[in-house]
């Protein structure tokens, strides 16, 4: 099993969720985070004074999937949320050793 962690733009939250549902993924965990990256922040003004914001709101999706699904899901995410502008985000993939469905106690891939 792998954990796919995608950091995306907040405005892409709804579309990505829908796209994942359509692809048959209905387990995921979402949270709001702040990110820095190549997108170096923006300027706002507070009473005429410049304020540099170098952390921007981002959304993190965590999706645990079978090894076989990783590539297709990564591709799906990439295509769904890409705008081509700096700040589109990153996907990280890492290994998960075990998974438990609390309700039933099932373990491993069938618990996903």
């Amino acid at each position: 099993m792998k954990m796919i962690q995608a950091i995306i733009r907040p405005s892409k939250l709804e579309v990505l969720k829908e796209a994942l549902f359509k692809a048959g993924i209905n387990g995921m965990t979402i949270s709001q985070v702040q990110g820095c990256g190549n997108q170096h922040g923006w300027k706002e003004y507070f009473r005429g004074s410049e304020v540099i914001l170098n952390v921007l709101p981002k959304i993190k999706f965590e999706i645990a999937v079978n090894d076989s699904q990783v590539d297709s899901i990564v591709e799906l995410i990439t295509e769904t949320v890409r705008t081509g502008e700096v700040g589109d985000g990153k996907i990280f993939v890492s290994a998960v050793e075990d998974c438990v469905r609390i309700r039933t106690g099932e373990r491993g891939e069938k618990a996903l």
Partner: protein
Amino acid sequence: MIDSGSTTFMLVCTMLVFLMTPALALFYGGLSRRKNTVNTMFMSIAIIGVVGVLWMVAGQSLAYGGDGSPFIGGFDQLFLNGTLEEVLNPVDGTFPPIVNIAYQMMFAVITTAIITGALAGRMKFGAVLTFAGIWLLLVYAPLAHMVWGGEGSLIGSMIGALDFAGGDVVHISSGVTGLVLCVLLGKRRGFGMLSYRPHNVPSIVLGAGLLWFGWFGFNSGSEFAADAVAGLALLNTAIAPAAAMISWMAVEKLMTGKATLVGACTGLVTGLVVITPAAGFVAPWAALVMGIIVAPICYYGISWLKKKIGYDDALDAFGCHGIGGIVGGILTGLFCVPELSWNDMGGLLYTGDPSLLIAQVEGILITVVFVVVMAFIIGFVVKKIFGGLRVEESVENEGLDVSLHGESAYPAFNGLD
């Protein structure tokens, strides 16, 4: 001599009506999505500025100046010309006329601000303010004249329709304008699919509470004297919303199984709207009945009609104010106590004579037609000026706060939306 008691009353009522617009900003702000909170509140707040200034420049003159046209005031009081003289050489009367200028300004501000509830989340900010300014001068001011312009005015005098504190002038006009703009704007992207919900319920409660508080000044101040009728208007403005709140909660319990706080606040606002044209005309028991009646009608308008017809009245400016105002105007024709009427017509229920009811309906129809036509025209003009009324898709997705204003409402809080 003036009456210092009534002067104080009108001074305080002016302040109370003022407070309704910041209250509306909180009410609408809480109802909006988090990413559009600043924009939603900003529309109301900026309208205090725009309308405040324009009312002084020309609005007051167009509404209450001139010499008795049925449709509109005149140009003799531009820039409040003559007002200072009146202050320096006081004449007799219940209260000094300058107080009424301020009072009328606050009415103009809150009326214009109500419209913005229909626009949340998608309209260009410059277009909103430009529309608001033109609308004030070409719709609100003439309509105020037609209804409250005294001797010779179209709706108030010739037709004889009654409007105690602004059913036609305030609620129907703003609600219907909101509807027209909804149609011109189109729906928010994702409307019906996405899960739009209010983002801050305490802000809604606070807004509704302050609105109600200010509305006491709005309705009882429309008696323009501190007397028993002002007391009646106040009491009715307590009873109708209380009844409408309970009525709305009962409908919700019946339809969805659960009474909600946002529902209760919506219900009380419909009760405030429905009693506005009637506040000083009806008995307390009629206020109770009006409150009970209005809530299910607005509920139906908001939950069913809106979906059916398919306009996106984001925060239900039409659903609450347009529909509620129409219901209130009609019921005034039914329940008006003849002795309290401003003319020789009384409510059908008391007199058996439908003249007032008919006048009320005529007044409403003229208001609706006038407002629809004018709002469409102004909408088109503003659309031309700004190359479209609507923001870019990306702006709408990202939220209007950050895109249009470079601000977030709560930058230090995490969350989704």
